[in-house]
């Protein structure tokens, strides 16, 4: 029971699919996640594996025509059951999100200050002047120099890194319990990326903010995550602590991902690849969905592997890799 009390986000059997009953094309299948208070969970996977959609589903921001089912328990309520007005009160308040491309996330025709202050006013009854002043402080907090001036600027006067800082400042405005970060540093260069990561880590430590950090960058996950969930074709195939997943991967897909990361040690050696490509929704094989690309498969793999939900380190595979001592 103790564990349950500190759980910030609990996703249970999240399913997302396109089309009606006759032609159902699953995008996300039976995804379950737990994020404890202040914890960083990295959701890792290739493009198209459904990471971003999982984040949007938690935010209640799936577009019309996309069906979903399951439970997203957050702050004592099931977010998926809330109506739009109730959800608006949660978004940007207890639950925030930052997006991938900082060049696109700010409205080009509105002042940065307006875009910060309106978020404050969306959740609290304060005057514009008061919201503006708080906005200045928020920008200062993420390391934007002379925020009073910068508040009056437009997004095009900011660099990519500065814009992402603004987005982060907006996400942290109401000291949320959880921030969903959809590859927020992918579009930035390496030095900016590390500055922003350090900033985010500082802030989340300060305010006890938990993160669902979506990324395809395993090196980043290694440095950031408390726990890692590996997603493949709409299913979570392996979860565990950062150390468990990265040092003793059990699922062949996780192993393949790790082998695809270039290292300095084996210079000139050909990078390992996972053969084939991720299946698109509608063409997902029954049974283990990694089967067509796996070199360990047997007849048993034609049925969907089950996971041991009681363990910390879970993997969805009939023939897991051995833990090498």
């Amino acid at each position, binding site marked *: 029971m103790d564990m349950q009390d500190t759980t910030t986000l609990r996703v249970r059997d999240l399913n997302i699919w396109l089309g009606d009953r006759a032609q159902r094309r699953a995008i996300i299948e039976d995804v379950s996640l737990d994020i404890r208070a202040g914890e960083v969970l990295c959701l890792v996977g290739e493009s198209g594996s459904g990471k971003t959609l999982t984040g949007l589903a938690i935010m209640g921001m799936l577009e019309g025509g996309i069906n979903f089912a399951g439970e997203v328990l957050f702050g004592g309520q099931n977010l998926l059951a809330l109506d739009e007005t109730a959800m608006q009160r949660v978004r940007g308040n207890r639950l925030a999100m930052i997006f991938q491309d900082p060049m696109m*996330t700010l409205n080009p*025709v509105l002042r940065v200050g307006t875009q910060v202050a309106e978020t404050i006013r969306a959740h609290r009854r304060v005057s514009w002047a008061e919201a503006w002043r708080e906005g200045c402080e928020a920008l200062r907090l993420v390391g934007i120099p002379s925020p009073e001036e910068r508040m009056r600027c437009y997004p*095009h006067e900011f660099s990519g890194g500065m814009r992402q800082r603004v987005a982060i400042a907006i996400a942290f405005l109401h000291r949320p319990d959880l921030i969903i970060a959809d590859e927020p540093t992918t579009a930035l260069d390496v030095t900016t990326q590390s500055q922003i990561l350090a900033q985010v880590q500082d802030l989340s430590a300060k305010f006890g903010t938990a993160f669902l950090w979506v990324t395809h960058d395993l090196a980043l996950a290694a440095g950031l995550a408390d726990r890692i969930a590996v997603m493949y074709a709409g299913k979570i195939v392996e979860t565990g602590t950062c150390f468990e997943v990265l040092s003793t991967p059990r699922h062949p897909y996780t192993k393949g991902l790790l082998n695809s990361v270039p290292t300095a040690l084996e210079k000139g050696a050909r990078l390992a690849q996972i053969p084939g490509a991720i299946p698109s929704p509608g063409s997902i094989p029954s049974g283990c969905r990694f089967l067509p690309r796996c070199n360990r498969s047997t007849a048993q793999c034609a049925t969907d592997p089950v996971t041991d939900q009681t363990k910390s380190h879970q993997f969805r595979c009939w023939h897991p890799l051995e833990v090498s001592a």
Partner: protein
Amino acid sequence: MTQAVILRILQSIGVILVMTVIVFIGLHAIGNPVDVLIPSDADQIERARAVEALGLDKPLWQQYFYFLQGILHGDLGRSFVSGEPALELIMKRLPATLELAISAVVLALLIGVPLGLMAGIYPKSLASRLSVGLSVLGFSVPAFWIAIMMIIVFAVNLGWLPSSGRGDTVRVLGVEWSFLTLDGLRHLLLPALSLSIYKMSLVFRLVRAGAIEISRAEYIRFARAKGLGRRRIVMVHVLKNILIPVITIVGLELGGTIAFAVVTETIFAWPGTGSLIIKSISVLDRPVIVAYLIVIALLFVTINLLTDLAYLILDPRIREKMA
């Protein structure tokens, strides 16, 4: 910025000069206004006197030279027909035309923008699909036909609204206006509406396309993630981005409507510059025609300048480039 404005003004002076030359030569080629003006039983002496009085006995280049001299003194010549100063004739008529054109554009915006926003945001609703269908009609049916149909329905059959003239007017700032009286408004409604149908469709389409495109933008997604209400997202985040193309079209259309409200003015017997220019062309009243074209050209230039200034207010990126 100032440089751009000065350049624009110089350009328009050039355009106006070329235009006046073309009009002089063109009207000279069409015929001699004296033949239209003097009674058919007038004798040679009367005719010669009339020709001399109008200055038509001089060679064309000299007439043009006198005309240019006049302009420098702010004199655009006198009407061949009434002898009144041409500019005065036009200025007396211009408010009626401006009133009609502006009403048409305002009507187009008042109806086109909200409908377009709705159709862009709820594309599947019945009202949206209906508006899309109607806008195709608005595009393709000619304005004069709509005007005639409106007269038949609202003026003749139902008898709700008058079909000709300006009705009662009120004098404000030395100019007569119809839209300030109830009777004037009743007279204004049909011509303004028939003139605005096309513009309304245009604005509707533009706003709808913009709303659809911008709703998909990443910054709208971020705005939702911030917990903003739908009203703030649509009325501020979406609308402000759509206004730039809409302002462009409105600027172009306003100029066009002022210049080419001729047909509508004729149908509704609206005493604006349109009906004046039609009459002047039929009697080859060159000073009035030239003065009219100059005034219209100046209006066009002014409206285009205002449009550009509106960009500066709306789009910070352009503001920076101009600075």
